[in-house]
Structure formats: C-alpha cells, structure tokens
C-alpha cells in the first residue's frame, strides 16, 4: 500500500503542478495577489507530495520489496544498507524521481524564502517553475515510472551495477542534480522577469542566492565526480572529456559567467540583457546535459539508461523550454533598456571579458560534444573528438582568463586604472615569477608550459590573498585589523574562490611531472616511481560479501625505508559477473603513489599501471575552496553595491553596457 500511495502522490503532484503553472500566472497578469499566493502554497504542497513519493520508493528499497520492478532490477537482499539507500537514485527511474524531488525542493524554497518578492514576479516565476515540474513529472509517470509492479514478485533482486556500489555514488549525483536543477530556478526567474517585463538590479538580487546554491553544488558535484572517476575507474586520470563530463561542464562554464555578470547587474544595473540570456542558456545546457545522459545517445560509462524513446521525450521538453524562452526573450529584448555605462577598462569591462571567455569555452565544449553526434546523424560516419581537441580549444581560452583574474579583481567600477592595478599586483607577480624559476630549478627539465602554468597558479593564489591584505592595510596599519573584520564577506569570498582557481591550476600543471609505469610484474619484482620504489610481494585471492577478488600486495619504499603497503585488487561481482578495480593509493602530503592492477592471466604475473602523482590532491582542493568561497558569499545577505569612482577630469567616452 505504501508503494501505491507513493505512486498516487506523484500523479497528484503532476496535476497540482499544472494548477501552479496556470493560476499564479493568471494572478500576476490580473494583479490579483490572492491568486498569486496560491502559487507558493502549491509549490510547498508539491514538495510534500513528491517527498512522500520518494520516501515510498526508498521504503521499497529498504525492505527489499521485489514486487516493485525498479527494486527488483537494482537491488539485492545482501546489498549493504548504504547502497540500499543510494540505490534509490543509482538507476534511471529513481534518479529522475530525485530530479523532480530537487525541482520541487527549489520551487518550495522560492515559495518560502522569497515571499517578500513583488507578487507579479513571484507569480510568474513559480508558474514557469511549475511548467518545468509538470514536464518532468509527466516524463517520470509516462516514460520512466519507478513504481511499476510485478505481479509475481521474484525472491531476489538483480543487484546494483557494481561500479556504482561506492560511497561516491551516494553523494555525486544528488550534488550534480542540485546544481543542474538549481539553475531551473534562475531560469524561472529570468522567464518570469521577461513575462512581467521588468528587469533591473532587484532581479539580480533575487536570483543571487539561487544562482550561488546551484553554482556551489554543481562545482562540488563535478569535483566529486572527477575524484570518483580517479579512484574508482582505475585509469588514474581526473578528467576525460567524456561527453557526460562535458555535459556537466557546459552549464558550469555559463553558470560561472552568469555568477559574474549578475554581480555587474546587481551592483551596476549593466549587462541586463546578457545576464538574462545567460540564465536561459545555462538552464538549457543543464537540460541538454540531462538529455545527453538520459537518452543514451552517447556511449559512455555513465549512460546506464539506453532508451531512445525516453530520449525523445526529454528532447521535446528541451525544445519546448529553450524555444519558448528564446521566443519570449526575442519579444522582450527590444523593450529592455541598457543600464549603467562603463569604460572598457573597469571592473565591468573585466567581467565582460570573463564572460566572453567562459561563453566561448562553453561553446567549444558544446561543439566538441555535439559535432560527432551530428556528423554521425548526417553521414553515418563515426568519429571521436577526444582530449586533443579540448586541450587545443578550451585550454588556450582558459589561460588568458586565468591571467586576467588578479587584475580584474582589482579594477575599480565604472572606470579603472590598469597601470595602477598592475603595480598593485607587482608583489604577487614577483613571488610567482620567483616560484616559477624555483620550480623549474627544482624539477630540472620539464615541459616549459607546465612550469609556466605552475607560476600562473601561484600568481593567482598569491594575488588573491594579497588583495585581502591590501584592502585591510589601506589607510595605514593602524586600523588594519578592524578593517579586516569589517571587510564584506563577499569580498573575502571572491578572493578565496579565485585562490581556489589558482590551487587547481597548480594541481593540473603538476600532472605534467607525474611518473608512470605500465608493466607486468611477478612477485619479487620492483619498479621505480620517482623517489619511490614499488615492490610486488604476492598475489592472493580474497572473497567479499558479494564478490571475489584478486589482491596484489605491494610495498612502497622511500629509499630503503618501507613507507606503506598497498593492496590494489581486481574484483569480480558474482551477481552480474562484472569486474571492477580497486586502486591502491599511498598519500604523501598532497602527492600520491597510485597503483591499479589489471589481469592476472597466469596467477604468477600481474599487469599493472603505477603512478607517482605530485600534488594531485590540489586538483580537487581547488574546487572545494571555490565552493567554500561561494558558501561564504551566500552567507553574506547584505546588499552589494559597486561604488563608482568619480570622474576626476572630463570623463572619457563611455561605452554602453551591451
């Protein structure tokens, strides 16, 4: 009965979302606040209903109710409890239910936290959000229903894909979805503002918390996914330009652009049209990501739902929302007046530059991801656009952007003084340069570009932190501490997030110096990895609760001292006869010795890949720091205004914002 109630609650939520898509909008257009007020209430009701539904499915997983087809397909009585929980969203139907749950969560969030918004904007926004919810609820009910029952319940389930039986899976998808779906609210605000026809600084203020929440979770979700791939897939890489990774990177790039352009809009009322456009594009790319992952049009490790019919459904949702919002945009764009003016060299100008680079990078990723699909669709020819393409397009776009970070951050609003800024970053630049030379000297030979990139990362990191010092010291050392505490949290947040970028750049640059060994070893053999020696001690079988595995024992020596014992393994899951690998890692500070084993064909030899990865942890620490910066910024509820610098003499010719 619980399962059936969950199913019915989902149907109720769909009808309620249709109601919410019509009535508040009607109220907004008729200026009837009571009708509008039905919107927030319906949004909260939807959250309650979908939560009930999600709880019912979770219950079915926890008690192993195999009369539910979805539970039978993806669970097993012997599965550890945590994977019974995470198994709920470790499959197509369940993950789509999580999608609509998060959608409802954001809808209710707006209803609860944004009650003080002008009622017409609130009504229109919630109506648009409900349209998205209705589309996806219909998708769940008609094309991917997790509540379908089996008349004759089997006695045992078919188990969760072993590669997904990992704590990383419990966290990665919900985070990523929070990010993807979070942008739906930003999109709804943009569409709502377009419907009402009022776009001003207050709009940027309204979307700010939602934009930040989406960006923080998406950042963490991507970093988490990258880390999961690093230790679970056993390839030793952190980013593969896999189409599904690209699908999450695209909204991140435009979302990051949006984060910056919304600052300009909130503080300076400039870049209004562009900000609205970015809000629409970012959510469109989130939908595109969902489509790419869910339709199975891409062959990748993530595409566990290969079902063209479902793909078509999402494609139609995609076309309806993107098409609809761009039409709306085209109608209203003419009516929007450009806002504040600014000189090309100014904080605004720097942020425009940032947006330009991020948007073009997103476009490059989009082309690299979709071009092979389009080509295959038109000519039937299968090509693959691999890392070389992205390294040649995205990386050169990112480098100048990174170089510009410390300067842009210091420019004044409206009109800036580039020379002064360069002088003020001098200290950081000098330290960065010295550090680069020192690195080059310490490492000896190495790719020049990588050494430069390390220097660049250090420069960003130091310049970001130096800016905090500089702002506190402005006006003498006397009140420095008081000023430090008085600094707006958003300012500190910016510095920290940018420092995170620097840290990540350093981590990525150091991958050029990793040591790699791919070989076959027998017990007693040793291989040298940088300063460390890896020795194979033996190979032995081992049995876990639902798998058998071959474990290789290695010892790691630093010179003659043994520092660690590693036990990488190759597992075979009995239920699905599926092999997975467990890597062995030894951490030394921020660096790592990493071993993954392959086949042990004759029981005496083992094929393996071993790496020495200097400072590899920085790759994920950077994004975590970025997300922390976002969180800090979110905690700052104060309004932000960019105080312009007054023109001293005759103002230079000013540029309009768009």
């Amino acid at each position, binding site marked *: *009965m619980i399962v059936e109630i969950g199913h*019915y609650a989902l149907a109720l939520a769909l009808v309620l979302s249709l109601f919410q898509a019509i009535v508040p909008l009607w109220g907004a257009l008729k200026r009837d606040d009571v009708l*509008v007020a039905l919107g927030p209430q319906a949004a909260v009701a939807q959250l309650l209903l979908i939560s009930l539904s999600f709880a019912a499915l979770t219950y079915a997983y926890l008690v192993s109710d195999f009369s539910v087809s979805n539970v039978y397909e993806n669970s097993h009585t012997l599965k550890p409890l945590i994977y019974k929980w995470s198994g709920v969203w470790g499959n197509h139907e369940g993950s789509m239910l999580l999608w609509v749950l998060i959608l409802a969560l954001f809808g209710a969030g707006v209803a609860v936290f944004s009650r003080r918004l002008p009622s017409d904007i609130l009504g229109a926004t919630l109506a648009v959000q409900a349209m998205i919810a209705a589309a996806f609820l219909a998708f769940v*009910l008609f094309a991917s229903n997790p509540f379908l029952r089996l008349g004759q319940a089997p006695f045992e389930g078919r188990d969760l894909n072993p590669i997904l039986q990992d704590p990383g899976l419990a966290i990665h998808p919900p985070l990523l979805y929070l990010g993807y779906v979070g942008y739906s609210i930003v999109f709804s605000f943009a569409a709502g503002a377009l419907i009402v026809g009022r776009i001003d600084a207050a709009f940027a203020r309204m979307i700010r918390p939602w934009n930040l929440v989406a960006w923080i979770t998406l950042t963490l979700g991507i970093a988490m996914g990258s880390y999961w791939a690093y230790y679970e897939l056993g390839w030793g890489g952190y980013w593969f330009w896999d189409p599904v990774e690209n699908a999450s990177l695209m909204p991140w790039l435009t979302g990051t652009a949006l984060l910056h352009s919304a600052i300009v809009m909130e503080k300076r009322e400039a870049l209004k049209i562009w900000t609205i456009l970015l809000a629409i594009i970012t959510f469109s790319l989130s939908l595109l990501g969902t489509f790419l992952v869910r339709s199975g049009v891409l062959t990748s490790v993530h595409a566990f739902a290969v079902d063209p019919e479902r793909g078509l459904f999402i494609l139609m949702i995609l076309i309806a929302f993107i098409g609809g919002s761009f039409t709306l945009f085209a109608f209203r764009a003419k009516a929007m007046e450009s806002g504040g003016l600014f000189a090309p060299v100014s904080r605004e100008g720097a942020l425009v530059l940032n947006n330009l680079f991020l948007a073009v990078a997103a476009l490059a990723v989009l082309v690299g991801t979709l071009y092979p699909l389009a080509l295959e669709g038109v000519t039937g020819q299968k090509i693959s656009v691999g890392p070389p393409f992205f390294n040649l397009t995205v990386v050169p776009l990112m480098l100048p952007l990174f170089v510009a970070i410390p300067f842009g951050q210091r420019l004044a609003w409206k009109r800036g003084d580039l020379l002064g800024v360069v002088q003020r970053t001098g200290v950081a630049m000098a330290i960065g340069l010295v550090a680069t030379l020192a690195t080059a000297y310490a490492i000896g030979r190495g790719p020049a570009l990588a050494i430069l990139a390390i220097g660049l990362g250090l420069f960003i990191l130091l310049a970001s932190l130096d800016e905090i010092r500089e*702002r506190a010291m402005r006006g003498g050392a006397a009140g420095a501490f008081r000023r430090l505490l008085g600094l707006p949290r958003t300012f500190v947040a910016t510095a920290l997030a940018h420092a995170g970028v620097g840290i990540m750049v350093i981590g990525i640059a150091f991958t050029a110096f990793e040591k790699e060994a791919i070989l076959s070893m027998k017990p007693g053999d040793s291989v040298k990895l940088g300063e460390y020696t890896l020795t194979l001690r033996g190979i032995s079988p081992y049995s876990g609760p639902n798998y058998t595995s071959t474990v290789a024992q290695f010892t790691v020596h630093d010179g003659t001292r043994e520092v660690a014992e590693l036990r990488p393994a190759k597992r075979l899951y009995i239920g699905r006869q599926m092999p997975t690998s467990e890597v062995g890692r030894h951490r030394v500070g921020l660096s790592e010795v990493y071993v993954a084993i392959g086949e042990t064909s004759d029981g005496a030899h083992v094929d393996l890949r071993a790496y020495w990865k200097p400072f590899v942890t920085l790759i994920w620490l950077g994004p975590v720091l970025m997300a922390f910066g976002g969180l800090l910024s979110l905690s700052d509820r104060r*309004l932000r205004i960019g*105080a312009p610098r007054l023109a001293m003499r005759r103002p230079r010719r000013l540029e309009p914002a768009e």
Partner: protein
Amino acid sequence: MTLWIGIVVLTFGAAAFALRPLLRPPRSRSSLDHAIGFYEARRQELDRQMAAGLISESERAASEAEQARRLLAIERQQKAGDGRAADLRPRKVAALLLLVFLPLLAIPLYLRAGSPSLPDQPIAARIAPGGDAEMHQALQRIELHLARNPNDARGFEVIAPAYMRLGRFQDAAFAYRRVMAISGETADHLANLGEALTAAQNGIVSAEAKEAFRKAVALDPGFAKARFYLALATEQDGDVPGAVRMLGELSASLPEGAGKMRVEAELDRFRAEGKAPPRAASSPQDEAARALSALPPDERARAIEGMVDGLAARLSTQGGSFEEWQRLIQARVVLNQRDKAAVALAEARKALGDKARAELDRLASALDLKAAP
C-alpha cells in the same frame, strides 16, 4: 480499501492545503514597495561601508546619486497596481478547477500504471519459516559459497535436491555432475543425475540420462531407481515387452513398500492395455487385487477409496501398528489426497507417540509431507 481511503485523504488534503490562501489572504508587496525597499537597503549598506572606512565620502555621494536616479525612473515607470482585485470570480474558478480536476485527472493518471490491488511485499514478510523464500535465501548463500569454493562436493550434494524441488532440473543436473567430478561416480548420484535430466525433458529419458542409469546399474545391479528408469527408457524406445519384462523383474525383487507400489502402478498401466500378464495369484491379497483390477476404472477407483477410508476409520478408532499407519498414509498420497494424508500423519503421531516419531519423520520427509495442525 485502506489504499482508497489513503487516496481520498491525500487528494483532499492536498487540495485543502493548496487552497488555504483563499481563506487567509497573505500580506504581499507591490513592486514599487519592493523597489523602494531595495534601494533604501542599498543606501543603508553604503552608510555601513562608509562607517567601516571601506569607501570614501566622494564614492558614497556618487553612488547615492545613482540610486536616487534609478528610483525616480522606477517610480515614473510604475503605475501602482492595486494588488487586491475586488473581483472574486477568478478565485472561485481556481478553487473549483482544483477540486474537480485534482481527483479527476490524478486518479486515472495513477490507475494507468498503478496496481491498487497489489499489497506491499517486503522480503521479511515473505520469509516464513520453511517457506519458499527462506529456502531461496538459503539456496543463495550456498550458491555464493559454491561460487567461491567450486570444489566443495558436500555443498553440491546439499543444493541438488533443493534445485529438484524448485523445478530447476538443469541446475540440479549440473550440481550432480559437479559432485561426481569432484568425488567420483556413485550409483546414487548417477541415478539422481539421470532423474534430473529426465525431469528436465518432461519425462523423456534422453540418451544421456539412459547412459547415467546404465552406469548406475553397472555399479549396483540391484539399484531399483536406475532399473525403473531404464525400463521406462526401453518403453520409450518402442520395446514394450522388454519394458514389461524389466518392470516385472524389478517388482519381484522389491519388498512391499512405496517403491514396489510405484512399479506396480506402472505395470498396471500396461495391464490395463493388455500388454502385460495379469498378476500371479499367490495370496488372498492378490486375489482381492485381481478382483479389483477386473472392475471398470471409475468403479475400481471408488472401491479402492472405500477400502482406504475403511482402513482410516479402523485405525483412528481402534489404533494400529506403525506399518498400518504407513500404508494408510502412502495410500492417501498415491490417491493424491495429500490433505487427508497430512491428517493421517498427525493422527499417527498422536496415536503412536514417541516410539515411532523417528520413523514417521522419515516417512513424512520421504513423501514431502507435513502433518496437518
């Protein structure tokens, strides 16, 4: 029923929740109020930054001038809307729409793919002691164990009969093959393998099964089960007289009991078609049997049932020996009256007490029978 009560409660609960603002209209803000509030807050923020020494007086002045300009622009732009339209009709329409369409759409949407009659089936509730689910779980543990210890003959020996009982004959055949590959062939295992293969073919004794039975007989010439199946194989090969001869020999070599009854039943099939000689009249019991077999089939069945019922009545009123109870229970099973057999088993337990408990347990497990409560 509880489900439908739940559905009604949920539907009207959701409708009532969603329509609450109609009864208690919220306070809301017009867009002009909001804009004024927004810029007012910004002015205060500028003051705060000024006090903290983060911006200069001139910066503050410039910013304030900007704020004022924008606020004026908004004021000009906005024609303040009332926000509380007196027209109540739209609200009534909205409420009516929700109350009507919420159940009208949601229930068919649910019924399209829902299964209102199916109860929840958590695995714990399905695992009754001795039930199939428990057996299934035990089976899985053994399977897992065997996957890791593929040379455990004892494990395969345990799992094979369980497979047979679940109708997984191919798996049973595989298990018996494994047992013999590990610990060598025995007549018992060979015959069991043949039986599993035969069952998998719906009773047809395949060449492979026949080979297994032959080997079993070679190891143990008197082995009844293998000889019985070989006789069936002979019949299936078209040699009816040969089959009858083999069954006759087998029957003669067997003591009274379930095995002999099974063979005789098979012989009776041939006798009914006139392909086997009638039984030799050697005892009064056989006399009675011959008289019985002379009757037309339905009368014969009734006569047998009558005899069995008579035996049952006598035993339950006057009591009897273990052998008599055994005959009754076996007869019930052969007549396909398993429920009555279960009753008889329970009665026998009570009547015979402790002295025959072990024998009765063995009989019950051989017949796959449980005593009636």
